[in-house]
């Protein structure tokens, strides 16, 4: 069978236990939400293929156990990641403070050029919010990474966040291999041309 994607990106979700990493992943990969909390005890992954600028990009997203006692083991998984989502819970001050520790963890264990993004999750819980949007934004600027507030419950920004991170990784890749740009635009044309003939026949069956 032909390869069903052009690129494979490995992404990692990290952050304190309970901030909503697993829910964010389930929202993104299954468009579902479950409010019962089952602590992740290990490293799990799901995939989702997305289209970015005409390229099929398979995202393999690793969800990690956030508990402190697993810290030394989980950091061993940082190495292969091309992008990392740092997640905190806007209703939990401690999880926000810990983002600094998580960033230090990344600096010590992940590839130096890994793309990062900070997510303030549970933004649907406006009434119990303790971390303002502005503080999240400031922290992100301080570390020169993108920032977004998400809700795994309502789905707000979840998809956008992943697409943004994937796009940043792809852009970096394109900059590194400028030759590929040609390939991208050519295949764009090709895809459009193929649309009318190719899929016309295919879909009619």
């Amino acid at each position, binding site marked *: 069978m032909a390869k*069903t994607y052009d690129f494979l990106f490995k992404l990692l979700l990290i952050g304190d236990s309970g901030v909503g990493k697993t829910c964010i992943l389930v929202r993104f990969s*299954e468009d579902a939400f479950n409010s019962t909390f089952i602590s992740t*005890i290990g490293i*799990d992954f799901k995939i989702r*293929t997305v289209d970015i600028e005409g390229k099929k990009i398979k995202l393999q997203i690793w969800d990690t156990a956030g508990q402190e*006692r*697993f810290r030394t083991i989980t950091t061993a998984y940082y190495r292969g990641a091309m992008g990392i989502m740092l997640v905190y819970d806007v209703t939990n001050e401690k999880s926000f403070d810990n983002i600094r520790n998580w960033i230090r963890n990344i600096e010590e264990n992940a590839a130096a050029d890994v793309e990062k993004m900070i997510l303030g999750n549970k933004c649907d819980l406006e009434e119990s919010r303790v971390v303002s949007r502005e503080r999240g934004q400031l922290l992100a600027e301080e570390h020169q990474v993108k920032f977004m507030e998400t809700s795994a419950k309502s789905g707000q920004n979840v998809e956008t966040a992943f697409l943004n991170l994937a796009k940043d990784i792809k852009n970096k890749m394109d900059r590194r291999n400028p030759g590929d740009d040609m390939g991208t635009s050519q295949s764009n044309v090709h895809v459009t041309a193929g649309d009318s003939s190719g*899929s*016309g026949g295919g879909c009619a069956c």
Partner: protein
Amino acid sequence: MDHNFIIWMGDLNYRIQTSVDFSTEIIKALADLYQFNKLLQHDQLQQQQKRGEAFTHFKEPPIDFKPTYKFDPSTNSWDSSEKNRAPAWCDRILYYCDDMSYIKNLSYLSHPEMIISDHKPVSATFELQVKVVVPDREKQTIDEISFKLDKLYNETLPQVELNSYEFKFEKVKFMVERTQVLKVRNIGHRPVQLGFKPTPDKQDRISKPWLSIRPDKALILTSEEVSINLTVNIDSDHVTSFNKRTDSLDDILVLNLEGGKDIFISVSGDLLSTCFGSSLETLIHVHTYVREVPTGQLLDLSMSSSWEEYDSQALSVRKAPPPLDIPKELYRLVQYLLDHGLNATALFTDGGLSSEREKIRDTLDTGGEELVGSVYSVAAVLLTFLRSLEDPVVPRSVHQRCMDASNNPTLCRQVLLQMAEVHRRCFVFIVTFLKKLLEHSQENKMDAKVLASIFGEVLMNSTREEKLSRNKKTLSQINKKKMTFLYQFLANDLTVNYK
């Protein structure tokens, strides 16, 4: 069929069936009178279509023109050649679509004005409804499909259910194996190959050295379950690091499902304090029983009041009782053998019973009144006690000197002088005991060589690293020298002033 629409046209060469009653001349006449319906009843194509023999699903627009064959070339007159062909609709246009409502015929004509051939051309026009791609809808559809495929893929990733993620081994005893069962059930849609991953914090082992996992690989078919034994056994090799707090009963195992996730399994617990794996220096400060001192705190005892420190500080700082001459555990074991085992043959090679050995070790650690068991079990525990000491009775720092001196009794005696007090006391104590045994060699059949060989090894025990790093030949030479060193004390009177 792969096609949405099929237009089939050409000289299909079907004729109007002639017969005795239906001659060429009649056909020509009917054609000239535009009596097409009468002629079509004899049209071979329409007959075959009706009988389902050809072009069954095809349709043909209604024919409202004269037969298109055969004319004299360059004229509009029927064939006048000798063959006198009957006119026929040879040239036809048929069409087909899965859903005939998508195709509509607008015209079906012949063109008699064309006279170059003996055929007249036919033409038809159709109106077709064709599918076109709406880019936005297409993208949406592809996204939906790929989302569903990905979801399906995620659902087929290996899935298991565990009976527990945490295993607690409480109150583990030295050298007593404890096993708990990890049950892994395959609740996914395909067989799962599982294995344990080495982790960097364990020097790339899958578990700490005192924890064994059996089996550590397994294939589980769907809905089936495997049982994996997690066995903790803290023996002489590991107990010292527990006493020194460089190790503890904690481990995180990484259970990997091939092609899928990793699951963390926590192992925790505690080792009951034990005299085994401790040091002589520590044990002489334990007046109560070891079990009453929490694991790891044994170390503090020896550090806070070493022998010399005690002398100077005893009055002011801590009113600790004076240290014992030798560890009471060593004393109890040897005394028992002196009382009951002097005449036993094979005292140190029999080994006794493991259940008895366990009870005896417990009694030493808990201060039970009596050692219960055969002399063989007690003798085996004595050897274990000596072998597991953090630093053996003859300290490692003097091993080389012992071996160098081994052929010379006087030099051997000098080495004894270089040993720290408690070590020297214990050494002399054991030598005295062994000599006592030799006094009974008539009954117990032991001789000095055999005892020197058994005790040379435990009194001057090499570390595990030393054993692993040397080859067999070197090791046997080393053991020979250690044995000779001890033999000098059994054969001569070298300890008399130290008793």
